[in-house]
């Protein structure tokens, strides 16, 4: 009994450590490579005898990171507040108000939940071209708001379906109209739902690759992921610089995740399961 218990614990720890190693090793390999001598071809995972921390500074200027982070921030600011606000309003209405054709509207939105971005990229390109928006950040922001909307509405509707009907009734008795009921009662109670949605949309915008690749030529007007793709195209052969640049680019996503990981995972679970 005890020996089998010990054996099980050893296997368990061993397998978990192996999976963790699998998750982290590609990043460690990038890290040691980023510290190798510039222009050299190091081996996969070798701590350099004299680490070149300066590579990160070189990568910073080579990829024009300040412009790239600035651009991504603008795109995120354009996408996230607008999408969260629109999705919250629509989700609330579909769950709590009697929207005419509400079922049909929600059904159409559900179709968008599974639509691959690639299925739309061709017409989006020509439409944005005729709007004269190709090459501008709006060409990323506007379609992204539309593309993220189904998930946002789905998420917020699920939250508001669970809202206590007694609260709405009580507010009605007190003479509050739909807007006041929403603003004073339901919105504050939905803070965890829409803030989790905002974090998910931040990641989705920050990490978006296809739209910037196709719709914006200038890498400094793209998202971080779009800029990283261009950086790989330009410095693909300089593995040291490429690894240093990639690590710099993924650092903000990583930091945001580590700070919010507790709330983030909890919220993700709640939303995904409704």
């Amino acid at each position, binding site marked *: 009994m005890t020996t089998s218990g010990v054996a099980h614990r050893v296997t*368990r720890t061993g*397998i*978990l450590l192996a*999976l*963790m190693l*699998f*998750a982290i*090793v*590609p990043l460690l*390999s*990038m890290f040691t490579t980023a510290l190798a001598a510039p222009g050299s071809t*190091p081996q*996969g*995972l*070798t701590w350099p005898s004299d680490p070149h921390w300066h590579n990160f500074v070189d990568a910073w200027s080579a990829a024009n990171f300040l412009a790239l982070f600035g651009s991504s921030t603008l795109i995120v600011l354009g996408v996230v507040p607008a999408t969260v606000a*629109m999705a919250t*309003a*629509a989700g*609330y*209405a579909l769950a709590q*108000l009697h*929207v*005419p054709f509400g079922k049909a509207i929600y059904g*159409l939105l559900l179709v*968008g939940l*599974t*639509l*691959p971005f*690639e*299925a*739309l*990229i*061709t*017409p*989006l390109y*020509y*439409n944005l071209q005729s709007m004269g928006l190709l090459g501008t950040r709006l060409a990323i922001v506007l*379609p992204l708001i*539309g*593309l993220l*909307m*189904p998930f946002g509405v789905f998420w917020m509707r699920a939250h508001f379906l669970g809202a206590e009907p007694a609260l709405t009734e009580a507010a009605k008795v007190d003479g509050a*109209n739909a807007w006041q009921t929403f603003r004073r009662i339901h919105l504050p109670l939905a803070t965890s739902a829409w803030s989790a949605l905002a974090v998910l949309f931040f990641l989705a915008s920050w*990490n978006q*690759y*296809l739209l910037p*690749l*196709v719709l914006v030529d200038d890498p400094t007007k793209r998202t971080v*992921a779009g800029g990283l*793709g261009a950086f790989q195209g330009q410095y693909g052969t300089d593995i040291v610089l*490429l*690894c240093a640049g*990639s690590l710099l680019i*993924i650092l903000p996503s990583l930091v945001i995740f580590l700070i919010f990981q507790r709330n983030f*995972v*909890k919220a*993700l*679970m709640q939303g*995904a*399961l409704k």
Partner: protein
Amino acid sequence: MTAPSSASAATQPVVPRRNARRARHWSALLWVAPGFGMYAVFVLYPMLQSVQYSFYDWDGIGPATPAGLDNWKAIFTQPELLHSVEHAFILVVFYTILPVGLGLIAASFIRELRPGAFSTTARVVLFIPQVLPLVAAGIAWTWMYSSDGLVNQVLRAVGLDQHTRAWLGDFTFALPAVGVIGVWVMLGFCTVLLLAGIGKIDPALYEAARLDGAGRISEFFAVTLPGLRRELVVCTTFTIIAALASFDVIQIATQGGPGYQTMVPGVEIYRLTFLQQHVGQASALAVFLAALVLVVIWPIQRLGREK
């Protein structure tokens, strides 16, 4: 003026209320309008355009000529298009089956641990790949698989020199190699979601199983697995969409090569429109891909709803 007012006196409490209800009813549309409007303009309308384009032959600049069903027939007859769809299904093994399977193992192991530093670290570390841009996953693994990369370094270290190769350039191994990147990205998502699901299973069920003398394995099949039905549906749905509609990782790592060994519909659509100007053909494949995802996802969702 006095007569109507006295006549309406009886109904007064009713009429304005009914009007107010009806007004509020229609004004509810205003709440939905901005979000649905953006969705209609940037998703629904382009989707219909894709359907329309798919029946034309168009280079994106000149006039479009009607092509009947040619673009649609090509999907089933042109080997490179057909293979791209096949590859998408092979990727499901790597994006869905392996991460869900390994995720179940990892989640049930983490559940057994006492809450503490190790279980938290395991959860966080496994989830990290999911939050990074897929572009970064592509770059990291392109380096892992290169001639000087870690995979070959390990093979050389254990004396398997004859098996080293440039993995992503190898006709046999390129597709599984790309698939492993999918396992890397999806494993943490599945583990964390399943772990949350296990946390919600009634502990009394585990106790009952133990009283019945169930071992770890039979406990897993009798209690854990049935209790995770909804979580499993979410994991499978999310990862299957990611597999069938994969783009970023493959565009960065192989661009569909060597030859067409790792070509998938997403990359093919991009190439057809933006590199080869076959807009009609790209659109047919795009509509086909969207429909394919729906057809695969629908029964899984049904399964999740049944009790």
